């Protein structure tokens, strides 16, 4: 049976486990209808021109976790940034693990989507924000139809979250190939602040297909810093759909570090609904093997005096493929917009491919918009310079790659996280450059 049919027919079984009387369920039923109409995206869709999910959706995924698995902290410790004092929301095969999590909170809400959807005290927030920022397509509709678990983060007015929040999804693979559909909602009211780190990790060799949707809402003057670490096994496919709505003078940044996974697709969407907004989209992609990463970004400038900055760096070795598909839309009202987009790529192998599509759609005249895209190689003379001074080729190359990605690495504000990312890169390049960047 095709995955689409399987999903649609399993909806009945899904209904048996959720509250079908809540208004959320009406949203699910509508979304399922949309998914039936859209289906999985194909290469015929312009937005999916360079990424095909065919190799993924042909697998027979189990849609609901069969049993709960307990993991010992010591076994998975390496996937946490454990030296960082933080809230932790951990899911194992899509089910919340209270054992690994740390969510004791004060003033703010760091809890579960399942409770948020069912308990009355969250209702005012859910009614206003749930499923409002997301734009519907095949993948998001599918998520909405089956959404019941994920992280729910609510920061009230004038509060800054006291420590960063880590959201970690583990897939154990005990049931064979599994499909996960986490749903996150992050609401930051006026003058609030939060930092979030998200990671998906497959612990087995079995296939995992994650279709995640995150909705973020930033009120006036709110600050959101979101880090996504994607360093999964090569049997994992991730489709990440993130939607951000921003209001006056808010600053939202999403940093995506894509180092692995079979197919990774990041749909990152920013909607600016106020003035003085800044949206920051950064990404470092370092790939080898047959991995494929597709960054699909959209920034919609709807109001005057806003800014957006996009900076994506990619290094591609062996048979890896990188895609950057960035779109900036400046609406007619959005005068005095400053929008920048830059995509730089290094190809290290003849089998590697880069497809880049930086797009501008501009309807306002008093704007400054630019985009730049480059594809090239490591500078031979710089390599020679270092080698002539006793630095081995491998290290010299690594240094150049670090330098290339440094703009983005520098934007990481949590020192522990920066160290972790540097370590992942060092492991990947197989070097120990012996100093912290």
């Amino acid at each position, binding site marked *: 049976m095709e995955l689409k049919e399987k999903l649609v027919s399993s909806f009945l079984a899904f209904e048996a486990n959720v509250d079908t009387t809540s208004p959320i369920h009406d949203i699910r039923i509508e979304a399922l209808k949309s998914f039936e109409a859209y289906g999985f995206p194909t290469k015929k869709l*312009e937005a999916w021109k360079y990424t095909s999910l065919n190799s993924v959706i042909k697998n027979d995924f189990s849609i609901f976790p069969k049993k709960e698995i307990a993991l010992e902290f010591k076994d998975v410790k390496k996937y946490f940034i454990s030296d960082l004092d933080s809230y932790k929301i951990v899911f194992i095969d899509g089910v919340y693990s209270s054992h690994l999590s740390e969510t004791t909170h004060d003033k703010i809400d760091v809890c579960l989507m399942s409770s948020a959807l069912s308990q009355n005290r969250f209702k005012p927030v859910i009614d206003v924000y749930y499923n409002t920022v997301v734009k519907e397509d095949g993948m998001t509709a599918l998520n909405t139809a089956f959404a019941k678990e994920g992280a729910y983060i609510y920061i009230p007015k004038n509060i800054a979250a006291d420590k960063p929040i880590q959201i970690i999804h583990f897939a154990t693979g005990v049931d064979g190939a599994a499909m996960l559909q986490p749903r996150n909602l992050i609401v930051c009211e006026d003058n609030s602040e939060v930092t979030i780190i998200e990671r998906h990790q497959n612990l087995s060799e079995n296939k995992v297909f994650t279709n995640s949707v995150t909705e973020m809402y930033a009120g006036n003057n709110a600050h959101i810093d979101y880090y996504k670490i994607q360093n999964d096994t090569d049997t994992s496919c991730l489709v990440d759909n993130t939607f951000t709505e921003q209001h006056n003078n808010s600053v939202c940044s999403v940093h995506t570090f894509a180092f692995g996974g079979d197919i990774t697709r990041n749909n990152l969407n920013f909607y600016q609904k106020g003035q003085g907004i800044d949206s920051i989209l950064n990404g470092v992609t370092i790939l080898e093997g047959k991995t494929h990463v597709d960054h699909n970004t959209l920034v919609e400038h709807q109001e005057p005096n806003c800014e957006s900055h996009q900076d994506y760096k990619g290094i591609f070795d062996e048979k890896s493929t990188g895609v950057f598909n960035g779109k900036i839309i400046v609406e*007619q009202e959005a*005068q005095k917009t400053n929008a920048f987009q830059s995509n730089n*790529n290094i*190809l*290290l*192998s*003849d*089998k*590697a*491919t*880069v*497809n*880049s*599509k*930086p*797009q*501008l*759609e*501009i*309807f*306002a*005249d*008093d*704007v*400054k*918009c*630019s*985009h*730049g*895209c*480059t*594809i*090239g*190689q490591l500078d031979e003379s710089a390599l020679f310079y270092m080698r002539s001074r006793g630095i081995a080729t491998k290290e010299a190359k690594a240094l150049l790659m670090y330098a290339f990605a440094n703009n983005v690495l520098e934007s990481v504000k949590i020192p522990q996280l920066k160290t972790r990312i540097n370590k992942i890169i060092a492991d990947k390049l197989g070097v120990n450059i012996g100093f912290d960047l």
Partner: protein
Amino acid sequence: MSKFTEDDLKKELETKEYEYGFYTDIESDTFPIGLNEDVVRAISKKKNEPEWMTDWRVDAFRIWSEMEEPEWANVNYTKPDFQAISYYSAPKKADPNKSLDDVDPELLATFEKLGISLDEQKKLSGVAVDVVVDSVSVATTFKKTLNEKGIIFCSISEAIQEHPELVKKYIGSIVPKTDNFYAALNSAVFTDGSFCYIPKGVRCPMELSTYFRINQGGTGQFERTLLVADQGSYVSYLEGCTAPSRDENQLHAAVVELIALDDSEIKYSTVQNWFPGNKEGKGGVFNFVTKRGLCETNAKISWTQVETGSAVTWKYPSCILKGANSVGEFYSIAVTNNYQQADTGTKMIHLGKNSKSTIISKGISAGKSQNSYRGLVQISPRAENARNFSQCDSLLMGNECGAHTFPYIEAKNKTAIIEHEATTSKIGEDQIFYCNQRGIDTEKAIALIVNGFSKEVLNKLPMEFAVEAQKLLEISLEGSVG
């Protein structure tokens, strides 16, 4: 041209179908509207074409009838009804009773500004001219010089009759019948166009131009151009004309194929100024053109275009850089005003080693127009050391227009070096102020700034065109200040 109302049309159709049948009408000058295989055969017969050409057209028609109109372009328009067009009409004859006084005064004013001679004005506005001394003599001297060099420059119909071996070899080799909807349509029904062949090692001594070719008049809406530069040759070809052409045809679907054999160079310049529709966006020409060139080893193709006309433009002059060391260039200025829409750009397909390409695209949008750049740079795995540089700049005038950029960059070789940059901005108030301060009024100041903005491309145009193109930019943007 007399007005042709819907009732007339109905009547004509009825009478044709029932009284005389279809075939009796072949000898008349205009075919009834509609398109089917018989019409395609009839066009071919009318043009007295050899059998292979007829078969080629019929094949193209069959392919076309199974294709769907493309919708991916960033333009909105009511799709033309392909069954409501007459696919063959004899060259329009000038109306002997028409004098210059009957011509639209607005058109004449534009001629004046462009500095076009009275005789040419008459010719362009369809007024009968007794003797166009200049043009005729110029054309004849041209023909003589070209013949001496062995250069073939004639209409494509003539070439099919007289040089079938060349046409047969090259037609459809770069833009195949199956290429796209409009190319297939053109292949089936093209009525005329130009053919040019430059023999080995010959450097064409003059700019070849459709402007000077007398038989160019009224070639209709489906033009086909085939240009072959044999080894080591050079040619510069100009297409179009800076004067506004008030053609009544709604749809133009042309195909241009360039073949640059080893070590040759083709420079192809276009100035397009078809009727853009009126200020309310009514009428205007749909310009759906497929242009492509093939570069063999060490060959070079350079496209230069100035697009100011047409209600809807859909045009991507491309280069297939097949040979090693081949070079492709694309220089473009696209100006849209009022309700015009342009979706234009280029494709650079790098297949050969050390192939190089440069793309400079300048878009200027004013009024309520939409201007898009859409381009592809593709580096194949075997294109070692390929190099591309692209620059797309957009200038916005007024807050109701749009400028869009859709570049596609695909690299499959690690030695490729690709740079792409795009900017969008408006004319700075400080720049205008600076000019005003020095006694240059705002309209002139804008013309000055636009000229500076477009300089890189204007410089690539042949001399005589450049001057007129510059004026054309001014005229196109007239009244857009504000």
